């Protein structure tokens, strides 16, 4: 799979024409998104350029330790970002952090152990980034839903607790729905992949001149690994986070105390 493609800065600059169209549509239809489009464009340029240099540094150094540092930073920022989407869940940071760490470690460990990828920076960095990014989205969606479910269903949860059910039993239907919300988006997009949209890795490989068969196989591996990592992250995050709604005496905490 050795592919080489050169993209000049001029080509990148030319693609800004499409950004101009997006901004023009926003201005014309008064969706008031011009400022956000500008911020998104500048941030993507700065962030991707920075990560590009960081990845080059890590590839050149060719040491697993730098990869681990980068993946750790990604997990940390992923948990912080996801926490901002789970405001109704008390103490959401640790469940998210642990969920992302376990998802990244187990899926990367498995793809290396099964001999799918080599344990080198060239594979671990991009694949790890994809796993953590998707796991972050899945666990953020799951905890966001969990927060909404619990705050809307306090009466139902307390009615079950009043029968002497444990917090785990009382929260089970809501945890299940939250977990489903977190994982269903990727399951659905996996079902339609190739029919309605071409996933990014495959597009990138085809553009870079790879054989379609290689592009498809690599894409399949990544999709299947992503299914695993999103499910693990959402499972761990919801499984730990629901406990924070309850006291050790199996009482539902008051929302004002969150």
């Amino acid at each position: 799979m050795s592919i080489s493609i050169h993209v000049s800065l001029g080509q990148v600059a030319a693609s800004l024409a499409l950004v101009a169209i997006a901004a023009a549509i926003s201005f014309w239809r008064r969706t008031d998104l011009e400022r956000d489009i500008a911020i998104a464009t500048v941030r993507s340029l700065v962030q991707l350029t920075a990560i590009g240099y960081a990845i080059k540094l890590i590839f050149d150094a060719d040491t697993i330790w730098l990869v681990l540092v980068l993946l750790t930073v990604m997990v940390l920022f992923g948990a912080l970002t996801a926490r901002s989407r789970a405001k109704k869940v008390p103490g959401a940071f640790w469940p998210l952090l642990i969920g992302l760490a376990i998802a990244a470690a187990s899926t990367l460990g498995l793809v290396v152990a099964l001999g799918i990828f080599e344990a080198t920076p060239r594979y671990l960095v991009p694949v790890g980034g994809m796993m953590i990014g998707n796991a972050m989205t899945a666990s953020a969606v799951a905890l966001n839903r969990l927060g909404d479910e619990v705050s809307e269903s306090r009466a139902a949860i307390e009615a079950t607790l009043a029968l002497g059910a444990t917090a785990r039993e009382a929260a089970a239907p809501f945890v299940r729905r939250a977990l489903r919300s977190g994982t269903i988006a990727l399951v659905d997009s996996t079902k339609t992949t190739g029919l309605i949209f071409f996933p990014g890795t495959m597009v990138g490989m085809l553009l870079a001149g790879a054989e379609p068969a290689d592009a498809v196989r690599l894409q399949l591996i990544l999709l299947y690994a992503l299914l695993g990592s999103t499910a693990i992250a959402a499972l761990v995050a919801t499984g730990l986070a629901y406990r924070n709604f309850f006291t050790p005496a199996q009482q539902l905490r008051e929302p004002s105390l969150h």
Partner: protein
Amino acid sequence: MRDVRDHAAVLFELREVSLTRGGRRVLDRIGADLHSGATAIVGPSGSGKSTLLRLLNRLADPDSGAIAYRDRPLVEYDPLALRREVSLVPQLPSLLPGSVESNVAYAAGLAGREPELERCLSLAGLDSAFATRDVGELSVGERQRVMLGRALAQRPDVLLLDEPTSALDHTARDAVEATLAELRRELDISLIVVTHDPEQARRLADRAVRLEAGRVVACGALEEALS
């Protein structure tokens, strides 16, 4: 009027019980003895009645003060076992999705008991044909009765009822009150009923605790406490 059972055993002892929520003093140094038999907790809305009821099976704990149940501090009981023995039926029915039967079986299962479906439905004033009905199809009054039947499936010693008829019309209210009176006759069970209606307290209870703005203003024999 019922006999006032002055000799009745004290179930709950509350001493200097206070609770603050959202900066508001909901319960303010509550002191009361709740006896076996039937006790009404009476007061206007916002007086802290429902909050007080929730403390009795530890759905919440007070910020300060002490509550004892059968001469033992409430906090020494396993909260799950306590809630099966002192069962709370909330003001608004909130059942698990599914059939009436599955709700009763769930509650019985938590208490490690056989469902005894017919007995529970009959005690709650429901025909056994209700067993297979989906709870989503029931009226509020019927759901309230399923809540009662579900609680009875655990064979509790004490039933805590939070405004058991507030969501019902007059006919349904009278039927539920008759069911509660029947329960007292048939089972050795104590009732603690929260109500805003002194007349309902007179119909259901032997004793009363009257609350106003989180404080006990009267406590004891029914007429004495309500007058």
